Each structure stands twice: as structure tokens, then as C-alpha cells.
């Protein structure tokens, strides 16, 4: 009985961590799905939003309830400016286009993380919110994990609804499927790309402001977060929303359960072994084209 309880706890904790990873990857996924741009500064957006939440806590004892809207709006603006100022000015569609956007976002990542280092220093920071445990029957869950994963799944659901059920969402999907086709039907694809990049950045901002209660960040953490998020969306099928959801849950459950049964050092290897296996068997990702934005 006790064993069963532990297994259930591991499974649910894994699903919740999946939610957190999904939250941290959503913005990257949206931007790639629509624009075919891998935003290498994505992790740095998350880190800066997290450090901003730390400063808001330090100044006003304000929690995620304030930090999330502030970071979301700020990164909506920052994302828009980056698109207008940088990405809109280079040819991004040609084969060399992807390379150019990689270089631009890589440089951006370096600039952002170094500015963050100047402002916040190099120490790991976190905020003490949602620190207690939530009891579900005999099971205990960290409140921060529960809140983060609930928000993550809600956000994933909302984005899915927006993409499939609203007019603007359908226009975004049209652009994702064929930019040329969308443009020739009279869509303002430039604006759609602007909106997508700003939204993707805002999602990174929201993710950072919330997950800092769970994962301490420092100015240089961004690169690793980008890699983690990219692994997840590549596993799910780049730009695929349902795939990312599936991959997130899979990764979370595998991480938590393999670190219980095999030890924490083995767990990180298991994840990448599975990643490589999936890429060999299904190079298009778990769901590939099906369910793509």
C-alpha cells in the first residue's frame, strides 16, 4: 500500500514537473511553429523575468501575483521591439535565414545575460512564495509545483483554443502553414510574425516570473534553460503543441521516476537516451506534423 502511494506520488509529481517544463518551453514552441525561428535568447528571457520577480519581492514583498503581469507585459513589449528592431530587418525565410536568426538570437542571449549579470550579479536567487505543502489524501505536493503546473496546463489549453477557435489564431496557423500562401490571400504576415514573437516572449516572461519560486536562477542560467526547452519541443515535434504537451509529461515522469529508481545521476542520462532514440525512430518528433500549429 505504501509502495503504491509512493508510485502514485512519483507519477503525479512527474506530471507536474512536466507542466513546469511545458510552461518554460511554450514560448519557444509558438515562435518556432509560426516563424521557424529558434529563439536562443528564450532561456535568458525566463531568467530575466525571474530576477525581476526577485527584485519586485525585494522592493515591495510582492509575489507572483504582481510579478507575472509585470513580466508578461514587459516581455510583450521587449519581444515586439526585438522583432521590429532586429528580426524584421533580416531575410528570415531563405535557407540562410534560419542561420541568421540563430546568430541574432545567440548574440541577443549573450547581451541579455551579461546585462543581467551587471544588474543582479551572479548569485542564485529565488523568492519564498507558495512554499507550503498541499495535501491530497495521504499525498503531499509542493504548492509551488502544483501552482506552476496548473498555470502551465491552463496556458497550453488557452493557446490551443486561441489557435483553433479564434479568427486571429487561425490566421496565425495559416501563416505557420505557408507564409507565401497566407500573404497571397491578403494576410499581413509581418504583423502576425510580430504578434507571435511578442506573445512567445511574453510567455517566457510569465514562465520566468512564476517558476523562480521553484527553480533558483542566476544570470547565466539561461543557456541551459534554452537547451532544456528545445529538447522538449524537439521531442514533441518542433512547433507542435500537442506533441510538446505529451513530451513534457513524458520527460517529467521519466525524470522523477528514474531518479527514484536509478538515482539522480542516471536520470539525466535516461532523458537524453530516450531523446536520441525518438530522434532515430521518429526524427519528426513524437507527433511530427500531426497537430502542428
Amino acid at each position: 500500500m505504501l509502495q503504491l502511494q509512493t508510485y502514485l506520488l512519483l507519477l503525479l509529481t512527474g506530471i507536474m514537473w512536466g507542466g513546469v517544463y511545458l510552461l518554460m518551453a511554450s514560448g519557444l514552441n509558438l515562435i518556432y511553429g509560426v516563424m521557424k525561428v529558434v529563439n536562443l535568447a528564450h532561456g535568458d528571457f525566463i531568467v530575466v523575468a525571474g530576477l525581476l520577480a526577485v527584485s519586485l519581492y525585494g522592493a515591495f514583498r510582492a509575489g507572483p501575483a504582481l510579478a507575472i503581469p509585470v513580466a508578461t507585459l514587459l516581455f510583450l513589449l521587449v519581444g515586439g521591439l526585438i522583432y521590429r528592431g532586429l528580426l524584421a530587418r533580416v531575410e528570415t525565410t531563405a535557407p540562410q535565414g534560419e542561420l541568421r536568426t540563430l546568430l541574432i538570437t545567440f548574440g541577443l542571449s549573450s547581451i541579455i545575460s551579461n546585462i543581467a549579470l551587471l544588474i543582479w550579479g551572479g548569485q542564485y536567487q529565488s523568492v519564498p512564495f507558495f512554499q507550503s505543502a498541499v495535501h491530497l489524501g495521504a499525498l503531499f505536493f509542493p504548492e509551488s509545483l502544483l501552482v506552476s503546473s496548473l498555470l502551465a496546463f491552463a496556458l497550453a489549453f488557452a493557446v490551443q483554443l486561441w489557435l483553433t477557435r479564434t479568427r486571429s489564431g487561425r490566421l496565425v496557423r495559416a501563416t505557420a502553414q505557408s507564409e507565401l500562401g497566407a500573404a497571397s490571400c491578403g494576410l499581413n504576415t509581418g504583423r502576425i510574425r510580430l504578434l507571435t514573437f511578442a506573445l512567445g516572449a511574453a510567455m517566457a516572461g510569465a514562465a520566468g516570473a512564476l517558476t523562480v519560486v521553484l527553480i533558483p536562477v542566476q544570470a547565466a542560467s539561461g543557456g541551459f534553460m534554452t537547451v532544456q526547452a528545445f529538447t522538449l519541443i524537439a521531442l514533441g515535434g518542433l512547433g507542435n503543441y500537442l506533441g510538446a504537451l505529451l513530451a513534457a509529461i513524458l520527460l517529467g515522469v521519466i525524470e522523477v521516476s528514474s531518479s527514484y529508481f536509478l538515482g539522480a545521476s542516471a536520470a539525466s542520462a535516461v532523458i537524453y537516451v530516450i531523446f536520441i532514440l525518438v530522434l532515430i525512430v521518429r526524427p519528426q518528433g513524437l507527433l511530427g506534423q500531426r497537430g502542428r500549429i
Partner: protein
Amino acid sequence: MALFQRPRAPRPPIGHTLIASLLLIALALSACASSTSGGGASSTSAPIRIGFSITETGPDAAPAKFDLQGYQLGADTINAQGGLLGRKVQLVYYDDQGSASTAVQLYQRLITSDKVDLLVGPYQTDLTSAIAPLVTRYKMAMPAMAANLEPFSGRYPYLVQSITQTPRYMIPVIDLAATKGYKTLALLIQDTAFPLELAQGIKQEAAARGIRVVFEATYPADTNDFTALVLKAGAAKPDMIIGATYLADAEGIIRAARASNVNAKLFAFSIGPVEPEFGSALANAANGILGTTLWFPTLKTAGNAEFVQNFRAHFGRDPDYHAAMAYATMQALAAAVRMAGSLDQTKIRDAYLKLDLQTVAGEFKLNNLGQQLGYQAYVLQWQNGKQELVWPPAVATSPVQLPHPNW
């Protein structure tokens, strides 16, 4: 926002001014990051020049800055006492950005082109290990604040250790536990050099004091979720959960233990609780947690109160243990040079090995391999949102509060 619009003619490519200006900013930033340096030589007063590299920029800059200020205050104090061998001392230093390969280049430069008279070590064991062969090749005596024993195992006879050695970091925690009659221990170890060596020291001391290690596990440095680890540690029902950790993982373990209701009579971590951020990140959950420190402002070590006061006056902030260790390194350097009576590096190295000196960091005393035997570690505990020194009892600022209550 109108997404459905008549397409406009594509904008002509504007000159890439924005990209260019961003690149300029990036260049300026990287220039700032690489070119800070100390003063050059002034030949008129012919001061004794002490060279080193320090991490002034990059993620590790914050603690390294304390090291630098400790060195600076130490040099000022030497000069205020009339200098060394009748000459003033002067620091010559460069920013190594926390990179081992940069540190090697900088020490090469300090030795061969700046021709400094004396060397002291950089911040961090990794950097010390990287420059050790170079320093040994040029036979330069160098005290280094590298806690791991690897650089002091006989291969680099000119290096001496001027910080508490890693295996001793948590000995007083085990001593405290033995006094309280705690018998079993779960040990969580980050899979990197310092925590691994530290864990060996903990296990040895625990065995000597009759404490059983009932659970032991390592985890990678980038672990986010500690739930599984903490559940397994808790399942062994240990009296104590001890982590050989840094800051982020110590926080992660406490969060997971609290959320999963895993309890123990004592929680202690090597690095983590000693950082002020531990308290700000965990708030109430930090209270009752034990940590290790190598120095504390209230210690009655020789000249400690004066050091704290001077440090505040010089730099407008309180020193931390890094600053104290660096200051004590300068004290040891001065004593060794005075004992040697010259700048002959072999004589200075021999003087370091013979030294038995009371510094702000405690007794500086080495074995013949240059390993530090004198410096100790102390146990601090978060109490009501503040760090208090709790063990050994002779130096405690507040009585230790144990056992840790259930979450």
C-alpha cells in the same frame, strides 16, 4: 491589431544601424569584462609587487570581489605597519573572468613579463589547479585559497593552502550531532569535485564518532527536482539529513523536504545557508537549518574586531568569510616574507611551512605538504531570519536550536 490587411510593399532594407549599434554595445561590454587591471609598477619607491588574478566579472564575481577587497585591505595593513623588508607592497592584478585558461595566461604574464616579486592565488580551486603546474615550474611560492586537497598532494611543492581544507568543512556539524546523541545520517552529495571530497570527510568523521550513514546518493549539478531523492532519504528514517551542496541545490532539498513532509532532527548543508540569499529565498523555511562557515564577525580570533571595523571603513560593507580568508592570506604572506628575510622563493615556501601564526581566520599552520591544518570550520544556524553562530559552544552567539521541528 489588424492582422488581415492589404499587404504593403516590402520595406527596403534599412542600413543595419540597429544591429551595428547592438554589436557595438556587445563589444563595449566584452571590453569592460576583459581589461580591468591593477596598477602598474612604479620604480621610484621600488615596492614589493604581489601579483594575482581574480574573478572581477562573470557569474563568480560576487564572492571573488570579497577576496579582492580582503587582499587590498591586507596589503594596506602591511604598508601601515611599515611594509615588508623595509619596502612598501603593491598589488598587481588582472581579471580572469572565472576562466581557468585565462588565469593561466595571466599568471604567465605576472611571472614572466610583470616579474612580480610574490604571488597569491586566484578565487576557486579549479583556477588554482590550472595554474599550479606553471607556478611550480617557475618555483614561485604561492598561498592559495583552494579548499580541495588535490593541489597540495606533493606535486606542486610551492603551493600552500590558505583556507580550511575541504574534508574538515563539516566536522563540527558531526561533533554537534554526536553531542546530541544522533546516530544515523542521510548524505546527499552534488556530483562535483568539492562536495565529493567533502562527503569523504563527513563519512570518515561520522564513522569515528559512531554515526551510521544509512543513505547516500549523488545527483548532478543541474538537478531541478529533489522530490525523489528526498523521499528515498526520508524512507531510511535518518536522524540527520546532511547535504554536501552549493546554494541552489540546498534550497531545492529544503523545498522538497518541506513539501513532501520529510523530517529529520537536523538538516545541515555545506554551502547554501552561509549565503544571505538562502534566507531571502526560503524565508521561514530557512529557520532551524544549519550551515558551515569558515569565519564569523564575532569570532575572537587575533585582530578580528579590528579587521571587521577597518573593512567597513574601507569598503562600506561587512566582510564575509572570503574577505577574511584573503586578509589572513596577506597576514601569512607578510609573516613568511619576514621570517625568510628575503624574496628568495624557496626560503619563503619553507617559511610558510614553518609558520604558526594567529590570523583573523584562526591559526595558520601547515603540514609538510602545504595542507592547512590550523584553520577550522564553524556551524551557523538560521534563527528568526538571521544567521547565528551555534557551534562550537565556546564561540556561539546563540544556543543551537535542535531538534528541527516537523514541517
